[in-house]
């Protein structure tokens, strides 16, 4: 089995939603190559099926079918009657990441952190190993994004969810409209993610048949700097991964930057230069990211990928 990568190393372009009550999807979507699969216990599961979805997700997590696949579970919001039972079901099965919806402030994260600690103890998991992905879906969440993202060492990512956010802003989410509606929110969580050094994920694109609109939105968020996007259908995975793949030129340049840095270190020079320009740490870090992304995306460069 491959050694588990830390969130910083693992590609995190795609997070595929799977309703936790859907046995067929839970049995098959691991083959589609999403970077993360998210079993949902919240909105896609009817109240009547909350109990059985919990059992399905618990058993799926324990099953060899899902061993080694990065799984996130979206539990119900902290103030619902389902929250605690959801946590018990998934921590007892050793879930890697818990996604908490409707996060409005850091206090919620601290509360979840404490709950996870108790349950890790109860079920014999290594303390601190259950990570948190916070979903921001309201004005409060957006303005508190930095506090949320830095609220706990368990935080591995912050995501934006558009529908409830738009309602909170007294409008309705319209994917076809121009992106200014979500601009502030996107920037807020992006900044929070960068300050906290965690991942950030953009909103889902609900119209699975509108590839053009989907790719337009992906281009926007890639330019902004997002790490990835939540998805609702396996069909969206490949277009997303392709859009996020660096171009061969970008990859080639990244290799040259890394080579220059390695060379400078070898000869003991404190400053790295390439093509007459100074290259500092952020550029080198970005180059490493590009190369990792290239590897995961299967981008080839003349002369081979290192």
């Amino acid at each position: 089995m491959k050694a588990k990568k830390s969130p910083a190393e693992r590609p995190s372009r795609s997070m595929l939603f799977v309703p936790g009550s859907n046995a067929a999807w839970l049995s098959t979507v691991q083959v589609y190559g999403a970077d993360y699969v998210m079993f949902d216990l919240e909105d896609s599961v009817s109240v009547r099926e909350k109990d059985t979805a919990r059992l399905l997700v618990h058993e799926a997590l324990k099953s060899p079918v899902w061993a080694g696949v990065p799984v996130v579970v979206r539990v119900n919001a902290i103030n619902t009657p389902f929250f605690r039972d959801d946590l018990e079901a998934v921590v007892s099965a050793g879930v890697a990441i818990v996604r908490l919806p409707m996060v409005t402030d850091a206090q919620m994260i601290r509360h979840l952190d404490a709950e996870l600690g108790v349950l890790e103890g109860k079920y014999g998991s290594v303390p601190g190993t259950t990570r948190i992905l916070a979903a921001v879906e309201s004005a409060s969440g957006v303005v508190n994004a930095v506090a949320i993202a830095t609220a706990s060492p368990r935080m591995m990512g912050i995501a934006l969810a558009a529908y409830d956010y738009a309602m909170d802003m007294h409008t309705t989410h319209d994917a076809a409209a121009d992106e200014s509606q979500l601009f502030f929110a996107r920037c807020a969580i992006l900044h929070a993610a960068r300050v906290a050094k965690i991942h950030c994920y953009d909103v889902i694109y609900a119209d699975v048949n509108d590839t053009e609109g989907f790719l337009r939105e992906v281009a926007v968020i890639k330019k902004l700097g997002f790490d990835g996007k939540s998805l609702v259908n396996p069909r969206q995975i490949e277009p997303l991964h392709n859009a996020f793949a660096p171009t061969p030129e970008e990859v080639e340049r990244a290799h040259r930057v890394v080579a220059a840095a390695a060379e400078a270190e070898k000869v003991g020079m404190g400053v790295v230069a390439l093509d007459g320009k100074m290259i500092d740490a952020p550029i080198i870090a970005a180059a490493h990211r590009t190369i990792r992304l290239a590897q995961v995306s299967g981008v080839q460069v003349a002369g081979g990928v290192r």
Partner: protein
Amino acid sequence: MRIEVDAVAGTLESSDALVRVSPAEELRIEVTSTVEAQFGAEIRRTVAEQLDRLGVTEGLISVQDKGALDFVIRARVQGAVLRGAQARPDWRKL
């Protein structure tokens, strides 16, 4: 665990299983499967094992399998039994 009321869990969709339980004085299990030939025996084993883990010794259990994986069958049996017993799961013992 004792089954007190009729209960059902699962769906008839492909890759799922529909499990129905009702109270009885004896234990009767009936399994029908779309993949009876290849997996019938294994499914019956999984069901029996799961009932054993839940401590179910009496009840009428019918399983309509539509090609579900092992973990789905286990979860559906658990679901129906817990609903039938009107009990909450002990996550350590499932």
